[in-house]
């Protein structure tokens, strides 16, 4: 079983104490490249515990500065919080999916996916996306069979109903935020579901946007054991998805590649959490961005070829 190796200088990003809007946590990050600079997008939790999506920039992918709020809760569909961004660049635009909270007190129907589209990380075009309880969506970085493809998590907050990870294909960009599209997709969700749960007491959630390799899409996700108890064990797992029809699983992890063990994963705002939220391929190395203890952003890595080999060993 392949394990991820922690970056020795973890955490790579912690809250800046002087910013009230991120004083309770800066976590669940992902990166995109614009020109020569890397943009780190992350969830920032304020002193009053409202989440916004913030960004910082860097010349490399592990050292970031110049923090600012990017996506504010200023629309009907995200007015109580903007959480956990996942960014993908496709055809010159960046699509930042995030979880929007739209009611208070919060109910599952108030937890849905939203998107902010940008070309420059300054001006945004915001839309509500799904019409049902769902979270954690990421676009594939290329069209598949001429269509946009995305991976998302639905029924994330309706225990004992287990969450599901599924794929959606869109003919046109507008479909991504079309109510009609999603209502019809919801009725056919079973055709697009990835069967990743090993046990109904576990929970899954999309981690990072998939990474293309010649053997298939590498997809990292959050896998939590004993989710409905107080004995939760958070873990990071991976699957290899078919290049042309990514709802087909070619191989997958048999167990966690990383669980909370380091001090920065054990101590913080929510102790004992590791949560994958971004990934990139650098040479032959896969770098995984993950939130640690809902407090900071960390990196862990593995070799791409070894990972693929490992995933193919355990057939779905």
């Amino acid at each position, binding site marked *: 079983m392949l394990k991820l190796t922690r970056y020795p200088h973890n955490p790579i990003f912690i809250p*800046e104490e002087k910013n009230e809007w991120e004083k*309770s946590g800066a976590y669940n990050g992902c990166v995109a490249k614009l020109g020569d600079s890397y943009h780190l997008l992350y969830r920032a939790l304020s*002193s009053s*515990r409202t989440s916004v999506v913030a960004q910082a920039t860097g010349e490399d992918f592990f050292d970031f500065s110049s923090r600012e709020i990017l996506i504010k809760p200023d629309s009907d569909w995200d007015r109580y919080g903007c959480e956990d961004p996942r960014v993908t660049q496709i055809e010159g635009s960046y699509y930042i999916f995030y979880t929007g909270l739209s009611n208070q007190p919060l109910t599952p129907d108030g937890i849905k996916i939203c998107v902010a589209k940008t070309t420059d990380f300054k001006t945004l075009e915001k839309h509500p996306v799904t019409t049902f309880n769902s979270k954690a969506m990421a676009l594939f970085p290329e069209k598949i069979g001429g269509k946009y493809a995305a991976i998302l998590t639905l029924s994330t907050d309706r225990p004992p109903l287990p969450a599901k990870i599924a794929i959606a294909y869109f003919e046109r960009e507008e479909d991504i935020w079309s109510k009609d599209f999603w209502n019809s997709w919801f009725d056919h969700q079973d055709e697009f579901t990835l069967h990743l749960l090993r046990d109904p007491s576990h929970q899954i959630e999309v981690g990072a946007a998939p990474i293309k390799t010649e053997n298939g899409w590498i997809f990292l996700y959050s896998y939590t054991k004993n989710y409905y108890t107080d004995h939760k064990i958070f873990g990071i797992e991976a699957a290899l998805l078919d290049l042309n029809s990514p709802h087909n699983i070619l191989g997958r992890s048999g167990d966690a590649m990383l669980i909370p063990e380091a001090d920065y994963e054990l*101590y*913080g705002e929510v*102790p004992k959490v590791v949560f994958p939220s971004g990934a990139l391929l650098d040479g032959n190395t896969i770098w995984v961005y993950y939130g640690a203890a809902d407090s900071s952003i960390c990196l862990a890595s593995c070799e791409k070829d070894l990972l693929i080999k490992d995933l193919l060993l355990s057939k779905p």
Partner: protein
Amino acid sequence: MVKLKRYAGNPVISPRSWLKWETNGTFNPAAVYEAGKVHIVYRCMSDDNTSQLGYASTLDGFNITERLNEPIYTPREDFEKKLNPGGNSGCEDPRISRIGDRFYMCYTAYDGINPTRVALSSISVDDFVNKRFNWEKPKLISPPDTQDKDAGLFPEQINGKFVIFHRLENSIWMDFVDDLNFEGVKWLKGVVLLHPREGKWDNGRVGISSPPVKTEAGWILMYHGITEPEHRYKAGAMLLDLENPRKIISLLDNPIIEPEEEYEKIGSVPSVVFPCGAVIMGEQIFVYYGGADKVIGVATVKIQELLDELLSEKPHNVNY
């Protein structure tokens, strides 16, 4: 044997590394139930080893629903300001009790050089629950040049007197005073409630955990004891007479919690469970404790179960 049941989601509070004032530890919490929630006032250790107090609250006793990003109580008097740079100092191990419309807080004040002393402050309940932290100027209440710690005020007056527990040398003491106006003239002393018990788990040193909780059968007082020579901090329980709390009705033979989990064994100080707060919710007592001087856990026990065990013990053989 009755044991506290740990919440499986422990630790519930752990240090946030980027906040300098709590980066080295969050532990030894006081707890009070008020206005529909448990308020937790915990000791935090800063990057320069200064203790101050942080705040969190929980609606169900387990899940932290709110946690402030600034300390709610910082060293303010000469007797708790650091005289020894880099060493420990500050305001340690709070215990909070409500009497009338005020919360009284006893804590250990330490300047890093002189023996630790007990300080007393208070705040109106209304201010506290609305997070207006207008603490009254603290006063030292234990004698000068004498190490004293682990103090807590009895949550009711007994025969018109205020009752204060504290730890002198290795024992739990309790004093009965007419008023709380310690103006540098009178100091705590009183009588011994419990000495360390030779040959038992609490042979090393004993001090109260939280102020006692009231039941029909008597006051349940939890206390910490150190097992020597292993030097492990554990906690036990005793039952005090309702009208005359100097009288121990019974005392459990065994600890109700001892270091077992990793977060209790490994931290800033190994093998420590150290409760400073207990509240009643429903039929249970929720106990808040420090683990290894690093994190905070919660553990519960059914009141009836604890009482049954206490009442089945042989009568305690020390009576005053």
